[in-house]
């Protein structure tokens, strides 16, 4: 009886927490929606003028263009239209590409998710493994090597690492041939639905994914290692050992779950940025993702595209935060109780 009652009570707390989180998320999103509109209009440059720059376009024609963008209307009216359209799912037409923003974004979102998703997965798995093993065998050859490598990789600018790998494996050094393409995501004249198309994309994916994975592994390994080392000094581990548990079990059942908390935060923080892309890596490897799209949009400035892209970025970060909160409650009983 008593247990059943308390269980239903925790569920209610859980639901209330979830509700509060969701409301918070929606409010954040609403704030971003409003903020985006004004943020980009502070940027220097008139889109209509920039799109006609260095060409003999009569003033009346620039005005026509401005009107077609709705930029001739007073700001409050522009804002009302923007909010109404966005809420009804219409992100508008890109000034620069002259196509619906949702279409332009849709084209660019998959490359980014593919690249960032895969490298996050790989770097998490490998980074955690390296960190755990290093901490457990602290001072061993493995630990010293992996710590040295992690520190070196962590300190290395991504751009530089990317260019090095590109030259080594993309172009080739000396008699060592360049095995991978120097950029892009697929080759012209390839059927993307065929097996050859898949292999082609995988070949293009290899170097950028390797660079990002290496760059992230270091971070995860270092955080995992230090938080596990913190746990290793705790007395409950001595208790566990005293119970007669083998080292591997002590590690797996007791130490790692507790040490995972800071790493989870980090992973989810990074996960939120998966969509905004690793703009540096997209630049090095000419990867046609969202990071670059937002850079291109900034140059015009292409208000509808910028608003759409940043709304998506913000939504991703907010969603990742909500997920992290929920997962935290699952991982850490203290959070659940509080």
């Amino acid at each position, binding site marked *: 009886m008593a247990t059943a009652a308390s269980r239903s009570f925790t569920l209610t707390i859980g639901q209330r927490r979830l509700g509060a989180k969701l409301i918070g998320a929606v409010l954040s999103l609403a704030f971003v929606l409003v903020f985006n509109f004004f943020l980009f209009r502070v940027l*220097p*440059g*008139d889109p209509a*003028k*920039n*799109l006609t*720059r*260095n*060409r*003999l*376009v*009569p*003033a009346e*024609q*620039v*005005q*026509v263009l401005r009107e*077609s963008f709705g930029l*001739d209307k007073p700001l409050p009216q522009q804002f009302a239209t923007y909010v109404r359209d966005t809420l009804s799912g219409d992100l508008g037409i890109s000034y*620069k*590409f*002259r*196509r*619906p923003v949702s279409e332009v974004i849709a*084209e*660019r979102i998959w*490359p980014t998710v593919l690249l960032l998703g895969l490298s996050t997965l790989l770097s998490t798995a490998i980074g955690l493994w390296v960190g755990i093993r290093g901490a457990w065998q602290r001072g061993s050859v493995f630990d010293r090597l992996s710590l040295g490598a992690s520190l070196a990789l962590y300190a290395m600018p991504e751009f530089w690492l990317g*260019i090095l790998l*590109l030259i080594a494996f*993309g*172009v*080739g050094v000396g008699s060592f*041939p*360049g*095995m*991978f*393409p*120097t*950029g*892009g*995501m*697929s080759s*012209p*004249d390839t059927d993307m639905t065929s097996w050859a198309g898949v*292999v*082609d994309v*995988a*070949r293009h994916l290899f170097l950028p994914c390797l660079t990002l994975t290496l760059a992230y592994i270091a971070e995860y390994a270092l955080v995992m290692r230090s938080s596990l080392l913190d746990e290793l000094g705790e007395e409950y581990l001595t208790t566990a050992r005293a119970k*007669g548990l*083998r080292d591997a*079990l002590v590690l797996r059942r007791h130490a790692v779950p507790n040490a995972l908390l800071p790493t989870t935060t980090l992973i989810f923080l990074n996960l939120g940025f998966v969509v905004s892309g690793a703009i540096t890596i997209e630049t*090095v*490897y*000419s*990867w*046609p*993702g969202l990071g*670059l*799209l937002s850079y*291109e949009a900034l140059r015009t400035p292409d208000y509808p595209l910028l608003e759409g892209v940043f709304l998506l970025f913000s939504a991703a970060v907010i969603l990742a935060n909500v997920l992290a909160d929920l997962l935290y409650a699952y991982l850490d009983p203290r959070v659940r109780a509080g």
Partner: protein
Amino acid sequence: MGATSSAGGNGRTRGIGRLRRASVLVVLVALLALLAAPSVTAQEQQPAGKLTFTVGIINDVDSLNPFIGILAETYEVWALMYDYLVGYSQKDFSPVPGLAESWQVSDDGLTWTYKIRQGVRWSDGQPVTARDAAYTFSRIIKGTFEQTNYGNYVANIKTVTAPDDTTLVMTTKKPSPSMLRLAVPILPEHIWKNIDEKKVATFDNEKDAVGSGSFKLEERSTGQFVRLSANKSYWGGAPKIDEVVYRVFNNTDAMIQALKKGEIDFADGLDPAPFNSLKNTEGVTALAGDYSGFDELAFNTGAALDSGEPIGDGHPALKDKRVRQAIAHAVDKQVLVQRVLGGYGTPATGIIPALYKDLTFQPGDGEAYNFDLAEANRLLDAAGYKDTDGDKIREMPDGSRPLRFRLFARQESNTSQQSIQFMQGWLRDIGIATDVKVVEENRLTEIIGQGEFDMFEWGWVVEPDPDYQLSTFTCGSRSYKSGGEVTANLSDSFYCNPAYDKLYEQQKVTIDPAKRAEIVKQMQRMLYVDAPYVVTFYYDELQAYRSDRYAGFQAQPDPGGVALFQYGTYSYRNINTPQAAAASADEGGGVPLVPIAAGVAVIGAAGVLVALRRRSTRDERE
């Protein structure tokens, strides 16, 4: 018991773990091999059946719809996809037959009759007729959105008719030489009539695009590439290659690496340092081509609206042309060319670059602003701008304020930032202080439009028709008021001279090229003397290509010009494998740039070797 079973289990998992690790390794290696394998073969073999010419570009094509796109890369693709009425000659940009094989102008200069080629077909098989051309021009004249890109070309056209399939007649409001410079791609009526004014603003023109040019659009992948295939029945001769691919790179370093590796065949827009490194790369030819761009130091000569109402806060000293002339003596153009451009350019004179031989302006003896700081100081002293308080900065003749100027450079351009560093030093030597500001181009455009500057460094790229460039100095090109706000127009020096405007109107209606050239030079002399700009240099365009894969590139202007990104498609239609190009060179085909260069290099190297050997033997003898 629990302990043993756990140990046993552990032993098992360990064994499996090792096995698994080994198998994972094998799979990984196999995957790697699979991924790496195709590239090794692809790189070695130039597919026997298909010649694909790959060009690296830094900006992605914005839109393939000729009414939307604005980037240079996009214009290059349209030039392959479409025909124009009249082209630009390879030698000197003079008008040459395009889709119009000939033309006539009436005695009053108002009626132009173009004879359209017979037997030309659209890529979907329909015949190209004068009606398509008439449709294209009428659509722009009647349209509103359509005017954004081409309104400038049709502003003077009154009527357009196609009395039959091979005759196009256009009448103009005033006589105009621009009727041979209509850079409007001719579009197929049967396709575009279905895309109305509303649809055209968002039409991407990517799928099954129909054109009549030397290449046909096959495929476009946003952010990645554009692929075109050769039109083997092109009226101007079948291209010898089969495909052109433009591949988008997001950074120049990667593009250069791709050229070194051979993934791309052509790279454009290089900086001097990587360009020099490519000179020593085997199989690559680096080409510094004469280009139609110049850079300038511009002055705020007295910002005002087109109505004459003053705006901004420019320094009063720069309204005095004697100050500007003194500064013109204090800019060492030769040093800028050597130190900023790495030698890849020439010191400039007028606003029409030297490669337009008929139009460019050369100052006469005693007219030129030679670099001479003493002369600059003397001119400023004579004009009454003296340093009265001993702080090494001159003051206005009435002593009211020092000659301290805001000098702007562009964040996007190294050239701009390096140039103003030199200028700052020279100006200091003639008693002028500068506050250097580096800002984004977008921001600078606004600052200039409001007249809130004293000097800036920027540049222009000049078309073969000088009209546009000349127009940037007319009174009417100054900023204007729109909805109560000051809006920038083309003029960025706010130069306004009725005598200049009169000549501008005159050249606009002078059809005879020689007579027009005289007026154009006269206008440039006026600008040279009044010095709203100090035009610093004409820069070269730095390009590089795989000469081990392709030969037969055509320079424009010939000789000395660029090999790609020209006014025309000469190289695309003529390049071939080096073997095939060498074979056809005897027939007087392309300009054998490569064989000549190689020959000179071999002879030169042999000479050096012989000289070295002689010297060494002599040394040994002594």
